[in-house]
């Protein structure tokens, strides 16, 4: 690439350096200092923040819960989003643009407002429980908030538009001629979908999944509001460590671990995509 080409990248590289590499780099030294309650960060070196994170069951449960949440939310947005995206990518209806706006619309609302909406719906005496009780489907209110179900419902809703938008692009990239070719060759609609449409939209499925997974495990506001003060995920844990307990070294170690997980995942999926690309 010419020097001129690199020049075009300079502003974003600078932003990346100042906004990401430097802060994360500064976490590294902080994370290996001992923290003494009521005194603060002290000099010296310790690996106990990392050891605790990787051995203490309390932390392991939070890490596991965060990853499980990321996985399940990703799967849920994929399962709900793919049919919607397929419809929007293929319909010739004149309502198409309006329907797309409808998909994007939640993004235009403030995140806190949307999350409070879910609290109103999912609470002990919220709308969902009232309907369930009214229909006689349950005898006592179902716990839908301050637990995994609450986070799953709220975050699936919040991140669905991202998944749908990415999938629309991916499905539109599958030429209808190619699907028609499969059908003329004797493939039923289902076989055509499984053998042609789905594999050909795989790159979009992968990037949508990475995006939703990363957004889910790093989200703070929604897990805080829907999980309450006790049902923790990694982001709320880090937040509390830094701002409630003022234990910056432990918080730094947790933040770095989250960053490593995210980076590893992005690299892994990149390698997966390259392998799929080599096959395709």
């Amino acid at each position, binding site marked *: 690439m010419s020097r001129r080409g690199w020049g075009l990248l300079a502003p974003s590289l600078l932003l990346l350096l100042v906004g990401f590499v430097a802060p994360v780099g500064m976490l590294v030294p902080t994370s290996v200092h001992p923290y003494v309650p009521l005194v603060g960060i002290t000099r010296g070196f310790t690996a106990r923040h990392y050891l605790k994170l990787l051995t203490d069951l309390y932390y392991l449960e939070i890490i596991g819960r965060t990853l499980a949440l990321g996985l399940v939310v990703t799967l849920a947005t994929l399962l709900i989003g793919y049919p919607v995206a397929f419809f929007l990518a293929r319909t010739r209806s004149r309502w198409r643009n309006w329907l797309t706006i409808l998909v994007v619309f939640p993004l235009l609302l403030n995140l806190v407002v949307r999350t409070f909406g879910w609290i109103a719906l999912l609470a002990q005496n919220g709308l969902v429980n009232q309907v369930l009780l009214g229909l006689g489907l349950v005898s006592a209110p179902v716990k839908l908030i301050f637990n995994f179900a609450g986070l799953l419902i709220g975050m699936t809703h919040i991140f669905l538009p991202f998944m749908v938008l990415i999938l629309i692009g991916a499905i539109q990239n599958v030429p209808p001629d190619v699907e028609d*070719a499969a059908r003329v060759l004797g493939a039923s609609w289902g076989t055509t979908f499984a053998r042609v449409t789905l594999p050909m939209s795989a790159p979009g499925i992968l990037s949508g999944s990475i995006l939703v997974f990363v957004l889910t495990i790093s989200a703070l506001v929604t897990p805080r509001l829907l999980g309450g003060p006790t049902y923790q995920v990694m982001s709320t844990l880090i937040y509390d460590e830094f701002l409630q307990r003022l234990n910056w070294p432990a918080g730094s170690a947790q933040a770095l671990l989250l960053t490593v997980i995210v980076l590893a995942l992005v690299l892994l999926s990149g390698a997966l995509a390259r392998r799929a690309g080599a096959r395709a």
Partner: protein
Amino acid sequence: MNGAAPALSLRRLRKAFGAVTAVADVSLDAAPGEFLSLLGPSGCGKSTVLRMVAGLVEPDGGQVVLAGEDITRVPVHRRELGLVFQSYALFPHMTVFENVAFGLRRRRVAEGALRPRVERMLDLVRLGPLGARHPRELSGGQQQRVALARALATEPRVLLLDEPLSNLDALLRDEMRVELKRLQERLATTMIFVTHDQAEALALSDRVVVMEAGRVEQIGPPEEVYRRPATPFVARFLGRANFLPGAVAASEATGVVVHADGGLAIRAGARDGLAVGQRVQMAIRQESIRVLKPGAGGDASPNRFPATIVFHAFAGQAHHYVVQLGDGRELEVATPGAEPPLARGLPALVEWTPEDVILLTERGSRPAAEP
């Protein structure tokens, strides 16, 4: 065509997209082993006809009959047809081998029988060693050959081709044209070939179906639609012709005399059903006209007129002239490139035989007699 039942019959097919009529009323038969072209400008409905045969577009009315069986309501994947797309439409995530094997796998052909069949198809389109490649590693011509092999591998009852050569560059197109024709003769597969390229249709087809605005204008062997176009549209669309409006002055057993607007009396071959005074269009092909030096002897054609050469261009195979007649009318002429050219600005003679005058009456009426 008379003996065997048609391989494919279309009966009064109709299709409208909203307010736009794509196919108005199309009926035609293709004999087994026939190479039939649907020829027309873009938007004439030829691709829609093909897609209705394939089952990808549902007709508003009419029937698609395949070897005597009405398949109008049979779903696409049970029609056992082959379709080759202009865009090739290969599966980019599969190897060439898997692309060709796709249709056979859908028919649950056992692995042992499948491999030799795919390899035979790849050999047939001269792609034998490329089975392990992916489509994007192939050139356009190779990709279209894969598409052809994929469509033929299942031994389709009829092979449909939707402008399969239009995405190829000129040289490759000529090469593929020959290859396609040879393949068709070798396999004796009935082929329905959609194209907007008249040269392609004429060169490949047993018969050509000329379409315009959702209707069939004429069906016939290439020479017939070229030499005896049924309508002004067909005359205009196939080859280049000069059109001269006029009125019939005399119609006898020996020939027809037409007074062209502007004064020339032009003789045409004998034809029934013409009334004196009737308005007609005369179409004279560029290559039917000869350009001679003034005072040239020989058997003078009854249609010999003095003219001036106002334009000349050499195009390799042909000389292109524009000549001006005494009444100011200009004619386009193409003469064989091997002849010595005549200089621009010089007086000359132009002539053509009465048999080369194509008489066209109202739209849709056919020439009643053959010259």
